[in-house]
């Protein structure tokens, strides 16, 4: 028996696909390679003392990687012997998250320019994005582990970047919490490995015969990916990390690793037998996350923390699509559309906070002193609630449809009640904006930030308008 170690079953399965080789696989991961080259190139520009070039290089590199992804739309295959999936979830994750990463890098520019190691920040954005893409296309539990670790390591450093006490404390909380949850995840995953004899997700069907081991593995995955997606009750790090680090990092953490982890969870449950009880477990987490996130957001005085709790609630909505994965045709397209909408509206909302200020009182009168900016914030928040015709509505509409089709009518009802509750949360920001008080200072966007929220605004509206066309193209 010369075939090494423990992937014996999968090796046998490989024969069906015929000649698997590097020549076929590498073009299919070209976007990931482009992101990696972007990250390394950015570091090189930093090294040769050209930090001015680092940001344009990062943005162009990420957009090139995005355009390399476009020909892959519609592909349904696996590469590197089933370990990595190039499918609707993985491909759309690239199309959504890479431009989102580029927007966050631009958003970071005013905060980090002329600091030491400015280029490293942009490189860390790209590296973290690679970890996230590894999660979204995971076909093997090792990708889950490496994806979580890779995106966490980059994120710790990004949160800690300002090096003041608040950022350091936030990063340490994040580091400790992340280390414990990912260690728990790895340990629990060994039970799946023991039960199925393979680390491949596509072999997970075998764990059904060992219900206890399957449960241990499921709990482990929910802890590890739930932490990455800041799903309640694994969310404790999120408000501190968002508020402690630069705002661009908060926008990034609330979108890119979160969407990656949610999609990774979908990749896992695609193969997991329903006898493990995953649909109910995920539905319960969804209900808890939505309800807790919205109630906690209701009492925040700091807009960053408010958005942090609101993003915990949004994770709950995402989980609707994951819970319905076994029983609904809509699940994949609902996850993709909501991910696109969420990326645009959440980055937009954080960008406005970067202009107006972190305190709720900073928003008083903003709608009168800066009408366009105020209107943009209203659009982002209305989209986060899910009111038509903007992007968030179509995303949520599909998620609710998927949940109902998957047999989770009660969950859809909880989600709708939560949407009403979330209106109360976002009105706490909107109402003071149009109250006739004298604003503290008229918020002015520097050009880079202005471009970011205008692009986010355009996308939030455009995704809403184009949602119908988008749905047709996903599956």
């Amino acid at each position, binding site marked *: *028996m010369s075939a090494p170690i*423990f992937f014996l079953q999968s090796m046998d399965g490989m024969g069906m696909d015929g000649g698997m080789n590097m020549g076929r696989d590498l073009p299919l991961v070209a976007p990931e390679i482009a992101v990696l080259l972007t990250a390394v190139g950015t570091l090189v520009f930093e090294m040769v003392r050209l930090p001015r070039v680092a940001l344009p290089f990062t943005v162009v590199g990420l957009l090139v990687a995005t355009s390399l992804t476009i020909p892959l739309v519609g592909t349904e295959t696996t590469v*590197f012997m089933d370990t990595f999936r190039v499918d609707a979830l993985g491909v759309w994750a690239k199309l959504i998250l890479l431009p989102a990463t580029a927007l966050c890098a631009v958003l970071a520019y005013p905060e980090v320019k002329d600091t*030491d190691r400015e280029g*490293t920040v942009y490189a860390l954005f790209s590296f973290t994005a690679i970890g996230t893409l590894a999660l979204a296309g995971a076909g093997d539990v090792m990708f889950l582990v490496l994806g979580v670790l890779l995106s966490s390591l980059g994120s*710790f*450093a990004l949160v800690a*970047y300002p090096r003041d006490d608040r950022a350091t404390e936030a990063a340490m909380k994040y580091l400790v919490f992340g280390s414990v949850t990912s260690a728990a995840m790895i340990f629990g995953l060994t039970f799946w490995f023991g039960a199925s004899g393979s680390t491949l997700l596509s072999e997970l069907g075998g764990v059904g015969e060992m219900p206890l081991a399957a449960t241990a593995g499921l709990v482990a995955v929910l802890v590890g990916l739930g932490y990455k997606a800041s799903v309640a009750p694994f969310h404790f790090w999120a408000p501190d990390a968002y508020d402690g680090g630069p705002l661009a990092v908060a926008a990034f953490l609330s979108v890119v690793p979160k969407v990656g982890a949610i999609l990774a969870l979908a990749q896992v449950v695609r193969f997991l037998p329903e006898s493990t009880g995953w649909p109910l477990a995920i539905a319960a987490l969804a209900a808890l996350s939505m309800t807790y996130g919205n109630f906690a957001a209701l009492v925040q005085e700091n807009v960053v923390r408010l958005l942090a709790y609101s993003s915990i609630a949004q994770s709950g909505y995402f989980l609707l699509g994951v819970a319905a994965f076994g029983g609904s045709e809509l699940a994949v397209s609902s996850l993709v559309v909501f991910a696109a909408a969420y990326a645009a509206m959440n980055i937009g909302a954080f960008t406005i906070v970067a202009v107006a200020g972190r305190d709720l009182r900073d928003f008083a009168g903003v709608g009168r002193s800066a009408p366009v900016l105020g209107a943009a914030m209203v659009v982002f928040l209305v989209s986060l609630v899910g009111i038509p015709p903007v992007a968030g509505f179509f995303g949520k509409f599909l998620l609710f449809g998927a949940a109902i089709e998957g047999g989770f009518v009660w969950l859809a009802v909880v989600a709708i009640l939560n949407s009403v509750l979330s209106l109360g949360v976002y009105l706490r920001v909107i109402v003071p904006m149009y109250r006739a008080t004298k604003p503290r200072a008229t918020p002015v966007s520097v050009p880079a930030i202005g471009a970011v929220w205008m692009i986010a605004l355009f996308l939030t509206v455009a995704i809403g308008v184009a949602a119908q066309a988008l749905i047709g193209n996903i599956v």
Partner: protein
Amino acid sequence: MTIIFGFLAGMMLVSALGVVLSRNVVHSALFMSGSFLAVVGFFVMLSAPALAAFQLLIYVGAVSVVILFGIMFTQSPQVRSFSTIVNKQVWAGLAVALGVGGFLSYILATEDWGATEAGQGTRDVAAFGEYLLGVGPDSEIFAMLFQLVAILLFVAVIAAIVISRRKDTDIESASDVRDVGE
């Protein structure tokens, strides 16, 4: 085999206790790498060289280094050691540890693991090395994973550099020193 297992298990338990009982955070971190090393030994004994290699590279290597960097650059020396390890969370911590340990042991004891074929493969390290690089026929299974591990280690180094760099306010005063240094 039993002797080796006993040694590794003892090393793991002693290191784990060291992590919890040590009053010095740096010592705790070093004990933790000892415990990680014992896990590497287990994986080697179980004929799982891939897990052993990843455990060694990522945990003993990257994670320990980042945690040590994190400790060294976020705390001033005087608060690095604590006078006591007992605080008001000790009972809660003990309960959680015993609960998790008990649950996992129960699963281990009750499930029938005999049917699983995992780890029955070769112990040939040379062949495994080729698989890691994806050079043999039908051997790309680890190729992308191995590259990801490489990126992970690289990012760990960058993260350590970013966390441990001088504060920006210190830079002006030290800029000429830095120029000479680089």
